[in-house]
């Protein structure tokens, strides 16, 4: 009985955090800020989902595959978000390296042709 309640709570956490991040897609204006909302879904939501699957099945085929899914989503999303942000900068500024006027500490500056 307690396990069922715990599973329901974990599933609610997963669905709620996913819903909040999806709503942010249409409420947040800037595209770079929107990309931040991909991260909680691939980490917190899937982690809550994994805990629920593990509670439901114990150490089984489903739990192992959900661990794999968590690892894939966690690693893949970081690479994908970086590639998307880079494409956004290239489309916006012509080059992805920082603009000299941006003064980003420690970052190499892009070609002077951007001025």
């Amino acid at each position, binding site marked *: 009985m307690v396990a*069922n309640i715990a*599973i*329901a709570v974990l*599933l*609610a956490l*997963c*669905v709620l955090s*996913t*819903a909040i*991040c*999806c*709503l942010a*897609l*249409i409420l947040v204006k800037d*595209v770079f800020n*929107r*990309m931040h*909302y*991909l991260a909680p*879904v*691939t980490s917190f*939501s*899937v982690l809550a*989902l994994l805990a629920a*699957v593990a509670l*439901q*099945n114990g150490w*089984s*085929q*489903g739990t192992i*595959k*959900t661990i*794999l*899914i968590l690892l*894939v*989503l966690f690693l*893949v*999303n970081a*690479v*994908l*978000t970086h*590639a*998307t942000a*880079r*494409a*956004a900068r*290239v*489309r916006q500024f012509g080059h992805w390296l920082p603009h000299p006027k941006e003064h980003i500490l420690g970052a190499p500056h892009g070609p002077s042709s951007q001025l």
Partner: protein
Amino acid sequence: MNAWLMGADVLLFTLVPCGIAVFRGNAIERLVALEMAGIVQTILLVFLAEAFHRPSTYDLALAMALLTFGGGLVFARFLERWL
């Protein structure tokens, strides 16, 4: 009706804002929405695999996770260089 099926039903509605965002804004904003939809569908497939007690269908969710990556990356590269 179990908790997993109820969760899957609610998760379906979270695809609505993703759908709206896919049809609005510039190309990059649409791509971000497409990536979010891919992730939500992966989670949805895990919910359904558990709701119908079919461990073999977890592979669909794993394949969806990998294909979301491939598809998103191809779009990102095309949007960066050629489109």
